[in-house]
C-alpha cells in the first residue's frame, strides 16, 4: 500500500474531488473517444483480404521485434557494461530516430533504400520492416540497458570467480535477470510496429498491413466503414491478448541450468568484439543513416509559407495537448499508483489505450467528435487522447516504484500530504515528468496516422509531408521535415535546460 497517497480525513473531500475530475476526464476525453468506434459496428464480416493483412501485420511486427532483440541486447550490454571510445556519443545517437516525425522517417527510409538512394529495395514488406526497426530499436535498447544498469555488477563477477566464461555469465546470469526489461521493450516495439500508419504508408508499396487496409476502407466508401471497424476490432483484440499474455510472463523466473558446454561457451566469449562491432554497424547502417538520409534532399528554398504555417499549427496542437495531458495526467497517475479501489482497472484501460493502432484511434475520434466541435478543437482533443495514456503510464510507474518511506518521513516531520507531495514527491519525479512531457510533445508533433483521419482542412507538418511526398515533391517534403526537426530539437533543449533549474 502506498500509505502516503491516502489522504488524511481532513483533506479526503478535496482528494476525492480531484480523483473524480481526473477519472471523468479520462473516461470522457480519452477512453470514450478512443473506443467509441466499436459502438458503430453493425454486422461484422471478415474477408480474406483482412485475414491477409492481419498475417502481414503480425508477421512484420514479429520480425521487427526479433531483430530488435537480437541486435539490441548486445548493444544494450555494450552501453551498460563496457567502456569504449565515443560511448557517450553512441548513447546519445540511439534516441535520435525517435525525434524524427514518423512521416519524415518513412520518407527517409524510402529514399535511402529505394531508387533515389542505394536502389536496393522497392517499397514493400522488407522496407516496412526496416522502417519499423528504425523507430523501435531505441525502445528495446533503452529498456534493456536500464535493466542492466540496475543489476548488481557483483552478480556477474561472482559468476566469473566461480569459473564462468563471459558468455556463460551473460547467458545464465545477465540474460535471465534483465529479461523483464527486454521483454517490456520488445512489447512496446511490437505494439508500435503493429499500429504505425503514417510512415508505413510511404514505404508499403503494394503491401497491406492492417492500418493501411483500414485507411483504405475508410477512404474508399462510407459503406465500407463496417469493414474498417471489423478489422480494427479484431486487430485490437489480438493485440490486447498478446499484450496481456506477454505481460504475465514478466518478472524474474526460476531457472535450471542443465549441462554446460564449457569449451563452446569459452569460444563464444571470444566473439564479444565481433558482436560489438556488429551492433555498432547495425546502428549506423540500418538505423541512423537511413533515418537521416532525408537531410540530403533538403533545399532551403522550400522553406515556404505553407510549411511555416503547418509548423505553427503542429506546435500549437502539440502544446495544447501536452498541457491537457499534464494537468489531468498527474492526478490520474497518482490515482493509479495509490492502489485505491478501481486503480487496477484504470491502469489496464490506460494500457489498452496505448496499444490501439493510431488509425483506429483516428477513425474513432473522427466519428466521436464529428460535428460536435470546430476542427482545431477536435485535433487537440484527438492528440490529447493519443498522448495522454503514455504520459500517465510513465508517471504512475515511477510513483509506484517510489520509496514511500521518504514521504512518510516528510509527514512525521509535520508535512501535510500536499506539502509532502510538493517538497518530496515532485522533485523526485521531476525527471520523469520532464521526459514524459518531451515524449508526449514529440509524439503529438510527429503523429501522422490518427491525424490523417481527423483533419480535413487543417494541415499539420506530418500531413503536409505525406501529401508532398505522395505528390513526388521529395525536396519540399524533406525541407518541411527538417524545419520541424530543428524546431523540435530546440524546444526539447530549452525544456531540458529550464527543467534543470529549480521549480
Amino acid at each position, binding site marked *: 500500500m502506498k500509505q502516503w497517497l491516502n489522504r488524511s480525513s481532513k483533506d479526503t473531500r478535496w482528494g476525492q474531488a480531484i480523483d473524480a475530475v481526473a477519472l471523468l476526464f479520462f473516461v470522457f476525453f480519452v477512453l470514450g473517444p478512443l473506443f467509441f468506434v466499436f459502438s458503430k459496428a453493425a454486422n461484422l464480416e471478415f474477408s480474406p483480404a483482412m485475414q491477409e493483412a492481419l498475417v502481414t501485420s503480425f508477421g512484420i511486427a514479429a520480425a521487427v521485434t526479433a531483430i530488435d532483440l537480437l541486435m539490441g541486447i548486445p548493444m544494450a550490454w555494450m552501453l551498460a557494461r563496457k567502456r569504449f571510445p565515443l560511448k557517450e556519443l553512441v548513447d546519445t545517437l540511439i534516441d535520435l530516430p525517435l525525434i524524427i516525425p514518423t512521416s519524415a522517417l518513412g520518407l527517409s527510409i524510402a529514399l535511402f533504400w529505394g531508387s533515389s538512394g542505394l536502389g536496393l529495395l522497392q517499397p514493400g514488406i522488407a522496407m516496412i520492416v526496416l522502417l519499423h526497426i528504425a523507430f523501435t530499436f531505441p525502445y528495446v535498447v533503452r529498456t534493456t540497458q536500464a535493466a542492466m544498469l540496475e543489476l548488481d555488477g557483483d*552478480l556477474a563477477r561472482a559468476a566469473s570467480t*566461480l569459473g564462468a566464461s563471459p558468455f556463460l555469465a551473460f547467458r545464465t546470469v545477465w540474460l535471465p535477470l534483465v529479461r523483464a526489461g527486454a521483454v517490456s521493450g520488445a512489447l512496446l516495439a511490437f505494439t508500435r510496429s503493429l499500429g504505425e500508419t503514417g510512415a508505413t504508408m510511404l514505404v508499403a508499396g503494394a503491401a497491406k498491413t492492417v492500418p493501411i487496409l483500414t485507411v483504405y476502407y475508410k477512404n474508399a466508401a462510407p459503406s465500407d466503414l463496417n469493414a474498417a471497424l471489423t478489422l480494427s476490432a479484431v486487430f485490437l483484440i489480438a493485440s490486447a491478448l498478446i499484450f496481456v499474455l506477454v505481460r504475465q510472463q514478466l518478472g524474474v523466473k526460476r531457472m535450471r541450468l542443465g*549441462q*554446460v558446454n564449457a569449451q563452446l561457451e569459452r569460444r563464444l566469449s571470444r566473439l564479444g568484439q565481433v558482436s560489438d562491432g556488429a551492433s555498432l554497424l547495425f546502428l549506423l547502417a540500418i538505423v541512423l543513416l537511413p533515418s537521416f538520409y532525408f537531410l540530403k534532399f533538403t533545399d532551403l528554398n522550400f522553406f515556404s509559407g505553407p510549411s511555416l504555417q503547418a509548423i505553427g499549427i503542429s506546435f500549437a496542437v502539440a502544446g495544447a495537448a501536452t498541457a491537457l495531458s499534464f494537468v489531468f495526467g498527474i492526478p490520474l497517475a497518482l490515482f493509479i499508483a495509490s492502489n485505491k479501489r478501481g486503480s487496477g482497472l484504470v491502469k489496464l484501460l490506460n494500457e489498452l489505450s496505448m496499444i490501439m493502432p493510431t488509425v483506429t484511434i483516428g477513425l474513432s475520434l473522427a466519428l466521436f467528435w464529428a460535428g460536435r466541435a470546430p476542427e482545431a478543437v477536435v485535433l487537440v482533443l484527438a492528440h490529447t487522447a493519443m498522448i495522454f495514456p503514455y504520459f500517465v503510464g510513465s508517471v504512475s510507474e515511477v510513483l509506484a516504484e517510489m520509496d514511500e518511506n521518504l514521504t512518510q518521513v516528510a509527514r512525521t516531520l509535520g508535512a501535510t500530504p500536499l506539502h509532502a507531495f510538493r517538497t518530496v514527491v515532485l522533485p523526485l519525479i521531476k525527471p520523469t515528468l520532464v521526459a514524459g512531457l518531451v515524449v508526449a510533445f514529440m509524439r503529438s508533433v510527429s503523429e501522422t496516422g490518427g491525424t490523417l483521419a481527423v483533419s480535413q482542412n487543417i494541415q499539420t507538418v506530418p500531413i503536409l509531408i505525406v501529401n508532398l511526398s505522395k505528390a513526388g515533391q521529395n525536396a519540399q517534403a524533406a525541407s518541411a521535415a527538417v524545419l520541424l526537426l530543428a524546431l523540435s530539437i530546440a524546444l526539447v533543449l530549452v525544456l531540458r535546460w529550464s527543467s534543470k533549474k529549480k521549480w
Partner: protein
Amino acid sequence: MQMPHIQIRNVSKYYGSVKALHNVDLDIEDGEYVVLLGPSGCGKTTLLKIVAGTVEPSSGHVSLAGRDLTRLPPEDRGIGFVFQNYALFPHLSALENASYGRLARGEAPEKAHRIGQEMLKLVHLAERADAIPKELSGGMQQRLAIARALATGSKLLLLDEPTNALDAHIRTELREELRRMAKQLGLTVVHVTHDQEEAMALADKIVIMRQGKILQAGTPKEVYEHPATPFVANFLGEANFLRVTFEDDRAQLLGRPVEARLRGPHIACIRPESLRLDDKGAKIRILGSRAFGPFYKYDVDYNGLSLRVRATHDKSDATHVSFDPADVLYFSEPDEGLEKALSAV
C-alpha cells in the same frame, strides 16, 4: 590441489585521482586465516578483488603458489569469493547456486548437484536446497554464499565483510563456525572486516589498512601490544594519547617520571585497562561512569585532559590514577598532527 601461498607485490590501484591502493605488499601462507581490518573506504574490497581477478591492478603483481596471476581472468583462477552483499543468483535455487561453479566448468549435472548438495550439508542448508535466495534468512544466505564458493573445490576463500548484514548474536555464532570450518577443511582464508573485535576473534594474522596502505601485519597479540602507529593503537581497542617531552631519556607523565631512550616531544599511549583508579598517583576527577557487566568504564579529568579508564571493580570514589611505566607505548609526533593521524581518512 593447489597450495595457496599468495604473494602480493607492490600492488597499486587508482580510480582516476583516487588512490584506492598504494604499493601494497602482503604474504599469505597456506592454511592461514588472515583478517584485513580497516575503516571503510581504505581499500579492503579493492585488494580482495584484485586477488580474485575481478579488478585489475594499476601496477604490481599477485601470485599464487609461485604462479603469476596478474593477467589471468577470474574464471581461470579458481579462487572462492564471498561478496559483501553475497551476490547470490536470485533466479536459481540454493542447490543450483551451490552447483554453479561445477556446472560452469562443464561437469555433468548429476555430479555437480551431488557436490552442491554436500556443500549445502556442510553449511546446514541441505533442507533448503529448493529455496531461492530471497526465501532464505540473512544468515542462511551468507552460508549459501560460502557453500557456493567452496563447491568449486577452491582451498582459498576470500570473504568480504561476510557478517556485516547479520544480527549481532548470529554474527558471533557464524564467526566461530567460519573459523572452525576453515581449520577443519584446511582452507586459506582472507577475511575482510571493519570490526576490530571480529578481527581479534578470528585471525591468525591481522592486517591493518588505512588510506590504501598496509600499516601493520601480525598476530592479534602482536598488533594489540605493539601497534606500529597511533592509528593502529586506536583502531584496535581504545587508547589514551598524551603529549610528553623527553630530556636526557626522562619525561613527566601523569605526574610521575618515566624513562625511555627518546629525545624531544613524543606521544605516550596508554590503554584504558592499563590505568588504575586508586588513592595515589595523579590527582583526577571522575566525570562519568558506566557499568558494562564484567567491567566498568570511567571518563576522568586530569588537569583538563580527559582520559578513559577501565576497571574490573566499581571505583566510583577513586581520587587518583596510576600506571605501570612498562605498559606505556611511545610514538613520535606524526607529521600530519595527532588528530589527523587517528582519523580514518
